[in-house]
């Protein structure tokens, strides 16, 4: 009897199958089975981004990159390289990056995979040289720190110069002018 039972046992898989029925989720005609915690594509809010580059430093696969040109600073998000770790969301100082549950990213055109946020680079009020910061960054710094706009909109070199000038003025008069 037990021998027969042993032989019949594999047939029990039919019982398992009929008990479970069809479990297939008819995606894409039906909602997929995704938990609320799922980490999908990130979205960068261009109205909030200040172009500070904190996310670029934190990003392990360099999916977020800062491309610097003469007068522009472009934050490029290449979703084709993104590992969806959401570290950028952790580190963003202004909360410009938002996580979504979007995973439907397939495309036949590689150019679809890039997002760009183009920032202006600030010119130094003093010498006209382009500094590293973006316009938004300066605004942000003004809000957070005790600096005046007058100090903020100059390049480091000019700041140094002004500082030295100021000190020397107090002591001996302007630098570089023979008195």
């Amino acid at each position, binding site marked *: 009897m037990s021998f027969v039972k*042993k*032989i019949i*046992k*594999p047939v*029990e*898989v039919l019982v*398992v*199958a009929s008990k*479970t029925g069809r*479990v297939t989720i008819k995606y894409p005609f039906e909602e997929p*089975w*995704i*938990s*609320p*915690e*799922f*980490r999908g594509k990130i979205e960068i809010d261009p109205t909030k981004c200040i172009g500070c580059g904190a996310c670029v430093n*934190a990003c*392990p*696969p360099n999916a977020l990159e800062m491309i610097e040109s003469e007068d522009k600073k472009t934050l490029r998000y290449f979703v084709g390289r993104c*590992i*969806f*770790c*959401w*570290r950028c969301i*952790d580190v963003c100082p202004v909360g410009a990056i938002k996580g979504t549950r979007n995973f439907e990213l397939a495309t036949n055109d590689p150019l679809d995979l890039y997002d760009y946020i183009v920032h202006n680079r600030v010119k130094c009020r003093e010498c006209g040289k382009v500094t590293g910061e973006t316009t938004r960054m300066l605004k942000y710094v003004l809000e957070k720190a005790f600096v005046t706009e007058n100090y903020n909109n100059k390049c480091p070199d000019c700041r140094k110069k002004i500082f030295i000038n100021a000190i020397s003025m107090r002591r001996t008069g302007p630098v570089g002018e023979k008195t």
Partner: protein
Amino acid sequence: MEGEKLILDKYIELSRDMGGKASIEGDTVHIIVPSEKLVEAASKLFNEYQCDFRVCVGTDERPLNGYFTITHIFTDNRNGLYVLLKTYIEPQDPKVPSITNAVPGADWCEMEARDLLGIEFTGRTPYRLVLPPEWPKGLHPLRKDVPYNYRPQIRGVSEKVSTTTETGVIPIGPYHPALHEPEYFELYVEGEKVVDVKYRGFHVHRGIEKLGETRMTYQQVNFLAERICGICGFEHSSCYALAVEKAAKLDVPERAQFIRSIVLEVERIHSHLLWLGVAFHVLGYDTGFMHVWRIRERVMYLAELLTGSRKTYGINLIGGVRRDINEEKKQKTLEVLRELEKEYKGLIEVALSVPQVRKRASGTGVLPREDALKLSVEGPTARASGIDKDARRDLPYAAYKYASFRVPVYTEGDNLARLLVRVDELVESMAIIEQLLDKIPKGPILLEKYEIPEGRVGVQVVEAPRGGDVHFVITGHGKPYRWRVRAPTYSNIPALRVMLRDQPLADAPLTIASIDPCFSCTDRVLIVRENGRREWLRLTGGLKI
């Protein structure tokens, strides 16, 4: 306490006998010996002290102290100790005696160090193991003076791989439906019987270690470590985090450790279910494959709920974890586990009753205990051959000391034993999760402020589904100075030769699958090229086959 002192004395005495010095830091014993005494010391540790050989690490310490070094990592499983045997090598003509005659398991890692760092090993046959054949000689990517993104202009010749005209050679791979990963086994057959095996692997070498030491920061390496392997990635990132935390002596919140352990066990469940499915598929029992993967889908959902991703969870950081387990998630987890357990037991019973599964798994691919010991195999492969070792119990980490569980051991050493070890472990894992969820303490999950001093050493073994992962970290400035990873498959592949010999060809895919090979883990360092049968014969020549 007395006993522990005696044991430590034993190691100090050993180092004194060898003319070296020893220091103890936490659970790690550092022994530094002169290179001429290295073989003697290693042999003593392996044979007399019955330490378990894990891996050796070559390091370019020239920027620090002007030397190359080689560190052999042993673990004393009975006393829960890590034993590091280190020696300094002159930088002009780096030469060090090989320990492979005493410890056969050291074969691969020595050759890896040779190709990576240019350290020569005397007293053994060296072979060009590393990097594609076109790789320029004298360029050793892990040396500190080589940039990580230096790509020599080589374009592989389009060589014919799987169309050997020589009959009697069955190439398995690099693209083979049983493997799902590009690895190359060449089976020499007589009729339908395998007489010899040639392995050429390391197609998945991506330069991870170098990347971790250069482009990345401490926190970023966690995510890199996770991508060493997509199946047991969390083991790797936990192992790395634990090693760094050990090196920096960080006091990680208990709750974080519990969460780590829980997620580690979730990963073990999904990995073992995956393996069972693949094994059934290899045996042609596709219905079993489909049903096992059907119940696995619940675990994947669970993993996503707990961590935010189905795989490569991305919740480990140095100092803790990123996602908490709240009451709702806890209840959901328990519910999923209950359902899983019920379905799993019924299904496995049915699947194992299929005559072809039983018949083909039992008695095939046997790995005798002596060979398993000599080759230092890991995980279920070792436990199926009667070696009772499990890092969760022997070298407790994370929160495993709060859980009680059984370590299943079988003595047959065949494919069925390896299958049953995994079947049993799955049930244990479910029990561990329940216990830990019950005991989870309240508190923070992430250490907010910490400091990682430079030049410290941390070693950690984490029991992955396939065996022990070993991570070795020397801390550096803002990133690891040296990061060495050893995955369990690295130790298990050499055992395949023993298992495949004189077996029917039809069993070869099952036997290869039975060690649950994870090549992407194994290959993370460099491309190993097996360019001759002689070396293989030399390695296992001393073994009874």
